[in-house]
């Protein structure tokens, strides 16, 4: 229902008003988002190195072939899987737990939320730095705590050892992301109509049965969407890794987006474009697959 529908005589004025209001936003997004993306798609098929811009011939699929032939790319792809799946799992489980604990009102809940949600105000870059210092192999507090409690006997070079480096960045990412899940899941829980629980109470269903048979089915579509958004987001989140390990040691914490940034910083825009296209393809394929698998449309 539009405001102006009762006054068709003003439709030209209305159209002009709409156009004027939308124009600035559209111009910005076209010029600084869509145009660069399209240019990136073109560059992906060109030989395009920042340090030799005298000739930028089209080279067909050469950039894609070069990227796909690199071990580092496949390693980054495998790491991306680990990074996304493990981070997501712990963020989800801990976030769900926190949401359930915060569901009922208690004294000081607002204050508690304000404090516990703070990691969120920080950038991934700063969080990476914070944990880089805490995971420091010599003066890091995490080594110290583990030594004091007798869990380890010698300091571990967390960020200098391939397996540990991945564990460390994931720990930092989980710490960061639990908040998001807690917030989203709390909102989803609040969307369950009270009457459903009252009905379940009348039927004598236990708390646990209520959770499985009332709560979960009701919030399942929302959960599916939250998880999808989160997967895309974690995949697109190179900031933390960038500042914590820079993808090292020896590429062991490189994910596909840090790999992309390295290509661009290295000046090879052709390959950077190709990696960008591959990421887009991956995102798209995954989203379609995921929506089909969770049958999101039907569930809704």
């Amino acid at each position, binding site marked *: *229902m539009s*405001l*102006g529908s009762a006054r068709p005589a003003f439709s030209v004025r209305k*159209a002009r*008003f*709409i156009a004027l*209001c*939308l124009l*600035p*936003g*559209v111009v*910005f*997004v076209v*010029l*600084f*988002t869509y*145009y*660069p*993306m399209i*240019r*990136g798609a073109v*560059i992906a098929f060109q030989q*395009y190195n*920042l340090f030799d811009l005298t000739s930028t011939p089209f080279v067909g699929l050469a950039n894609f072939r070069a990227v796909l032939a690199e071990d580092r790319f496949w390693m980054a792809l495998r790491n991306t899987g680990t990074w996304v799946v493990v981070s997501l799992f712990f963020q989800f489980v801990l976030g769900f*737990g926190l949401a359930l*604990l915060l569901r009922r009102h208690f004294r000081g809940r607002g204050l508690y*939320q*304000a404090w*516990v949600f*703070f990691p*969120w*105000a920080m*950038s991934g*870059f*700063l969080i990476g*730095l*914070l944990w880089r*210092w805490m995971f420091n192999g*010599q*003066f890091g507090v995490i080594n*110290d705590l583990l030594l004091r409690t007798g869990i380890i006997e010698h300091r571990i070079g967390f960020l200098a050892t391939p397996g540990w480096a991945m564990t460390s960045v994931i720990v930092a990412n989980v*710490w960061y992301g639990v908040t998001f899940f807690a*917030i*989203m899941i709390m*909102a*989803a829980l609040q*969307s369950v109509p009270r009457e459903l629980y009252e009905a379940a109470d009348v039927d004598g269903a236990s708390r646990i049965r209520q959770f499985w048979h009332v709560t979960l089915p009701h919030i399942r579509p929302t959960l599916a*969407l*939250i998880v999808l*958004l989160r997967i*895309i987001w974690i995949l697109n989140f*190179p*900031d933390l890794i960038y*500042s914590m390990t820079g993808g090292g040691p020896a590429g062991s914490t490189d994910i596909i*987006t840090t790999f*992309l*940034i390295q290509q*661009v*910083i290295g000046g090879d825009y052709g390959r950077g474009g190709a990696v960008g296209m591959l990421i*887009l393809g991956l995102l798209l394929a995954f989203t379609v697959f995921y929506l089909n698998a969770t049958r999101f449309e039907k569930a809704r």
Partner: protein
Amino acid sequence: MRRLAKAIVLGVWLLITLFPLYWIVITSLKPKAEIFSLPIRYWPGKVTFEHYADLFSFADFGVYLLNSLLVSLVAAGAVTMIGVLGGYTLARFTFPGRGALMLAFLVTQMIPLFIALGPLYLLMSDLDLLNRLAGLMLVYVAMLVPFATIIMRGFYERIPVALEEAAQVDGASRLVAMVRVVIPVMLPGIAATFIFAFVQCWNELFLAITFIDSEDAKTIPVAMNSFITQYDIDWGSMAAATVVSVLPTLVLFAAIRRYIVEGLTAGAVKG
């Protein structure tokens, strides 16, 4: 018993959440010798503000701070205005291409802007905007326009159309009705959008390090990034820089937490 268990779990999680913040603050207050000595002290033996002083005397942190502030204020201001206008049109009118436009905006939220980092650098270079704050401002506005527009649209949709119609019946034009009647009701939402956009600009890293390398145009993340690439990290200064750069965002986010939660969940829960 259950309540006690719950309190303990919540307490432990709060500790885990806050400890890193505590640790960075403590590190920033320790003398250098104490930061790099064993055993680690959980409370500084001697509190010093030397790292904060160093930031402003050795590094030009004052300049970076001002640059970050300027870029974030201008970009957030512009993006909020664009969102106020665009969100209104999307909420109140149906017109051909409306759905396509919404989709085009939503798609940008799924694809990170750094995917086009290379071409963006070329564009900035063509426009002669490298190493200039204006260039960062323009890209940040573009980065945040879709979000601001979509979230504003949501806020407008909660305001009854009757409110504006009443004003228009009284003879006010659409624009006047919008400014006089709708905007005041929207103020908290507008403020929240502004703050959110401000924090995003304040924190942005990859675009800034790609476009900026001259000292007088560096923003805080660019400057901190150049601290890292040095061989040894001076953790005292780094900790102080972290505290300085995170403090404003903590305060701002606390102020609009309710709106962020609403904004975030509105999209997904109603989905």
